[in-house]
């Protein structure tokens, strides 16, 4: 088996679209090494989404950019065991089961994977949000009653071992 120029082009495209920085492929008598970018594999995490293009005349406030492409329903890990709990859908975030009731969680609360941490309302339909991770709530970023976008970080949890 050999590779044509078109094959290599296709493989390069696959690597580019993937989350891998490097690919080594060995076929009988042929070795192909592909590395993304110019620098050797960088130790830093994937860069945040491109700088917010806030247009000067815009009277609308753009909320903090959500992590592009962050998967819903799973807490995304950041530095030193602190996980971000993303919003699984777009809607209005509520910290408490009903107005005036105590919030589901506060900073410092211990949560399990299935602990309810909030509600997201979409056109009067209530969806519960679960922590998806075991640990201690370190920060609550989404305000009660605010519009949250898909993937937007609602709270941070320090993972317990």
């Amino acid at each position: 088996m050999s590779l044509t120029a078109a094959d290599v082009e296709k493989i390069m495209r696959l690597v580019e679209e993937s989350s891998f920085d490097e690919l080594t492929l060995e076929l009988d008598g042929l070795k192909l090494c592909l590395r993304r970018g110019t620098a050797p594999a960088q130790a830093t995490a994937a860069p945040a989404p491109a700088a917010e293009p806030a247009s000067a005349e815009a009277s609308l406030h753009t909320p903090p950019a959500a992590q592009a492409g962050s998967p819903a329903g799973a807490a995304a890990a950041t530095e030193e065991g602190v996980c971000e709990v993303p919003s699984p859908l777009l809607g209005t975030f509520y910290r408490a089961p009903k107005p005036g009731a105590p919030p589901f969680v506060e900073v410092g609360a211990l949560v399990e994977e299935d602990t309810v941490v909030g509600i997201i309302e979409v056109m009067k339909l209530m969806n519960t949000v679960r922590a998806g991770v075991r640990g201690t709530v370190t920060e609550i970023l989404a305000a009660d009653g605010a519009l949250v976008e898909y993937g937007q970080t609602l709270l941070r949890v320090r993972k317990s071992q």
Partner: protein
Amino acid sequence: MAIRRILIANRGEIAVRIVRTCRALGIETVLAASAPDRDSLPARLADRTVCIGPGRPGESYLKAEAIVHAALATGADAIHPGYGFLSERPALAALCEAHGIAFIGPTAAQIESVGDKVRARAVAEAAGVPVVPGGQVDSVEAALALGRELGTPLLVKAVGGGGGRGMKCVTRLEDLAAAVALASAEAEAAFGDPRVYLERFVVSGRHVEVQILGDGRGQVVHLGERDCSVQRRYQKLIEETPAPGLSAPLRRTLHEAAVRFGERLAYRGAGTVEFLVDVQREACYFLEMNARLQVEHPVTEAVTGVDLVAEQIAIAEGAGLRFEQSAIEHRGCALECRVNAEDPGADFHPCPGLVREAVWPEGEGVRVDTHIVSGSHIPPYYDSLMAKIIVHGPDRATALTRLAAALAATRIVGVATNLPFHQAVLAHPQFRAGAVDTGFVARLLERRAAAEEIAHHG
């Protein structure tokens, strides 16, 4: 009611297109985007972007509730649905109506009447618009009976369909039963509606459609026709206006039929009435109505000077039609090529991926509607349309020359495109002469495949 903020429930080039007109009108824009589109060009151009869900359309662009919620939460007065996605789903229009948001398009009831091919046919018949002989069939037996009556070749279509899905051509009656079963299964899978209907297949047909605008109170004007006969498997690739080689009476018949159809519905907004033109018989038949802005609307804009999105917005505001039929003038000729990320060398397979470099043409009479710039990603979840290259000239020959130059000046690196295919069509003497039928592309590809075969073995 003046619209001050529009939520755009779409992506890609049409989202960019809508933002452009909104900016010109001083209207703010909120883009409802999926996660992979968060950093797309329309997201950068819109005043605000909200992420409505992950990449798969079913979890983002097709979620009417999330979109209306986003519109209410961001203070948008109106929703522009673009084309595709929710543009022709009565659910979004109905939700907007229920929540006091202006839907920039027809009413939910109008979408329903034209979305169902059988009902649309009935509207056409009631409006005195000619239809292709045929009808709905509920069983294989009924299909066979009607098929015998109409004679072959026949076309089997999905009642709730569009875009060529669920459509089958049958040349022998003994194949009809299998084709009906297959079309029905495909229609069920694609549209959740297994109903099919049968019609006579016009062998040498041209696809000509008429752009209309209606005020929703019974007044309708047309903005001329577009010829979209350059199609591959019912996917339009090149469109132009005026349709070349139509006799004046036939052209007038088309325009008048489209207006009558719109009047019958008291149609609101921009819409397109599609016709099949039987070249041999000099006749035209109603095909369907598209209750939305069409992909190919820019060719109409080029020759009429009308900004169709601006008119859609005015109608949604209740301003009605801002000009009469006699005020619409048609100047010159315009053509559009749809540049798709698909490989004509590999059976037009979609080629999503990273566009390393994108250079689009500029110049006299050239317009490019695109969301692709160098570094853009084409996600695998959506259609492969990258750009529409539109040219306008005082006559067809000039427009063709400009189109050839524009295609030659286009440079795309990183993904395969159908540009070589467009160039081949443009160089073809039959296309240059004008008035090709809808079988033109299939014959062209067959001949090329045959030529390659000979080259291989020769």
